[in-house]
């Protein structure tokens, strides 16, 4: 799922200060789980902005606002409310915000910062383990991703900053190369560690990504 963090309320208020009538779009999936875009957050943000003179003309929570067709469907359903709105606020990741841009000519604003593609471990515990690099290396690293989980994305072993098995950059995180070593050792696959890995092929996925049926 996409992990998001709500922007400071003052920043959101500054973005929409010239718009009185606001329409809110929430996210029933990732942002709900992150508590940045579920029904409660949609209502709460509307209430807060009303305190500074804005008016909520309507809101909707789309199951997954990264689905552009779904967002368009919701916007059709709420067309009367949208007709009275001066701006749309989207409480999701940047993908959902841009779905809304495809669905309306009104100005659309993000209320969240999108952080990473995260694994959900338990309530409000998220960890980045895959960064969608376009060329998966997990086969050679015991299923543990150094591209994502080493701050330097090292492919050939640890740097000198391994600190008693923790990462020099953030001591709350393990050195992923210690994890990979231990895993490969237990699998009796240390030969994979010994193999020199080539640099990433940044042409494997041309950004921005685009997939069409073949």
């Amino acid at each position, binding site marked *: 799922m996409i992990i998001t963090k709500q922007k400071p309320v003052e920043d959101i208020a500054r973005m929409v200060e010239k718009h009185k009538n606001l329409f809110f779009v929430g996210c029933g999936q990732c942002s709900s789980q992150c508590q940045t875009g579920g029904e409660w957050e949609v209502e709460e943000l509307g209430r807060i902005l009303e305190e500074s003179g804005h008016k909520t003309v309507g809101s909707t929570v789309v199951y997954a606002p990264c689905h552009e067709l779904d967002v368009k469907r919701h916007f059709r359903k709420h067309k009367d409310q949208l007709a009275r709105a001066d701006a749309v606020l989207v409480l999701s990741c940047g993908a959902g915000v841009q779905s809304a841009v495809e669905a309306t000519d009104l100005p659309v604003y993000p209320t969240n910062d999108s952080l990473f593609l995260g694994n959900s471990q338990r309530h409000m515990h998220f960890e980045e383990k895959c960064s969608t690099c376009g060329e998966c290396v997990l086969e050679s690293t015991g299923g543990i991703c150094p591209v994502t989980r080493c701050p330097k994305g090292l492919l050939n072993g*640890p740097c*000198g900053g391994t*600190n008693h098995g923790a990462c020099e950059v953030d001591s709350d995180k393990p050195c992923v190369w210690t994890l990979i070593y231990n895993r490969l*050792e237990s699998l009796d696959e240390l030969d994979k560690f*010994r193999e020199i890995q080539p640099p990433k092929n940044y042409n494997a996925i041309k950004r921005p990504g685009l997939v069409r049926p073949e």
Partner: protein
Amino acid sequence: MAAYREACESGKFVVSGEIGPPKGTKVDNMLHHIDLLNPLVDALNVTDNQSAVLRLGSMAVSHEVVTRGGDAIYQMTCRDRNRLALQNDLLSAHFLGLRNVLALTGDHVSVGDHKDAREVYDFESVQLIQCIKKLNEGFDWAGNELEGSTDFFIGAVVTPESDPIEPQKLKYEKKIAAGAQFFQTQAVYDMDNFQRFMEYSHGVTEGTDVKVMAGLVVLTSVGMAKYMNKFVPGVFVPDSLLEEMASVPKEDAIKKGMEICARHIRFCIDNKVCDGVHVMAIGKEEIVPEILQMAGLA
């Protein structure tokens, strides 16, 4: 200028020092250190935005070292440049007469003074070593033939006190396989541990011409020694040295640190532990000549 390579290949005990370029354009002190050390060492390392802190460039200062009659070990990190820029700088360095490169991954930007910068790491140390080897063979990384190849002596680093050590050892072996010809170690202080590491290393480098130089950072106070233990990963100052540093009045601590450094150099020579030393005084280069003298090297 191939003095360092020749010194390494001659089998003599090689000595290198280190120059950290200043943050800014005031170079008098640095030039003084270069002139002071050039006649005494086989080469001077020049650091590349050391600790991810912006400084005067490693290539320009390496060139100055050579212009002033010494040999330079051009340090190159992968943190700030992609593969095009790295190769471009390598060709430029070669054009300027630099012949020794120390290939490093580089400290992460988050430990430096531009914490919000984007780190690059398009290559990492092992791949940079491979890349330099390819340039030496007349090809760029993409496999295109060069009009004239480079002739670099390829260096790398290893951290003998890394914890855990096993992954570090495998990476060391990969650097050798990639084409590293000489190594400078991260600072070592426990000579028994270092000797044990070198016994392992000799097994790995047997039958190759790979040279290993002990990295020695001069202790200047007991506080510095404790700081290294606490905050510098891969560095271990044993209790015996902490006690030795604490045994003298504060004002004599530098002298004691110099003595310890000279003793470790001697230990490496007398016990044939490694092929040379890389002495780092981190801004206090004026003490290096005396250390070398104390060790009987000058």
